[in-house]
């Protein structure tokens, strides 16, 4: 390797290191890497519902309830909600309690409707930093009610 190229790498490495050291000392980097933790308890019930619905849908799939692709799609939405909420609560997503009712789809609709109502009220009462996420979750759960109603 020519000496000049090696020198170039070294210079760039020094500049990168200096840049990172400078940024890490300022509030911008620290703020971006620090998760906001919900200390109000407002998100925890919504997180538990997401985990329960995820578990219930998986149990319905495992029980051979049919409509597998649709139920998997809904389960994945709840999994995404649980992951996002768990980050804000500062925990891992809980396992959730699976309830498979009879009829399966009718029970799932009731659960999704209750989940929508819960997220809606949580959103209306929430601190501004959680309003958007809770609104998104409420809207998604509403769309699940509609999807299940067409099965």
């Amino acid at each position, binding site marked *: 390797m020519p000496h000049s190229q090696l020198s170039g790498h070294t210079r760039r490495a020094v500049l990168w290191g200096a840049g990172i050291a400078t940024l890490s000392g300022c509030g911008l980097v620290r703020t971006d890497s620090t998760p906001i933790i919900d200390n109000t308890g407002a998100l925890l019930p919504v997180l538990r519902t997401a985990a329960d619905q995820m578990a219930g849908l998986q149990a319905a799939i495992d029980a051979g309830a049919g409509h597998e*692709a649709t139920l998997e*799609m*809904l389960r*994945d*939405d709840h999994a*995404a*909600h649980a992951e*996002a909420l768990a980050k804000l609560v500062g925990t891992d997503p809980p396992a959730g309690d699976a309830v498979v009712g009879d009829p399966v789809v009718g029970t799932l609709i009731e659960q999704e409707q209750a989940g*929508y109502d819960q997220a*809606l009220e949580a*959103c*209306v009462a929430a601190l*501004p930093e959680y*309003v*958007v*996420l809770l*609104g*998104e*979750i*409420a*809207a*998604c759960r*509403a*769309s*699940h009610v*509609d*999807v299940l109603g*067409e099965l």
Partner: protein
Amino acid sequence: MADDLTPGLICEYEAIFGYGDAGPHLTGAERDLAVRAEQAHRDRRDAVMTWLAERGQEVPAAQPAYTLPVEPVDAASARDLIGRLEERCAAAWRSVLPDSTEEARRIAVEALAATAISAARWRRMTGVTPSTVAFPGRT
């Protein structure tokens, strides 16, 4: 301004205009769905206009025409346009949420939910999977 619902209202205006352009290119079940969806946008527009007026807030007027993201020339482009309009409405109502309180926030969440339902219906109608999205309104 807190509790400013006008971004959502303006998107409802645009959606109603867009459905008017898209509708003639659709037939059968798609046309029926478009008619129901357009009526839902009209109902929401009226409710929001009334809500704003009752609080003495300025109610922006609808424009005579809107520049649409897609010009519908056939059924496929009409479906494409409607899908985009519903997603734009979802994004608009989502954008209202952070600066809203109480009743205005409830209106915005319910509108976001309604557009999420409508967008998912169009995805199902056109065979797009997954038909639901975990975080409606995100672009």
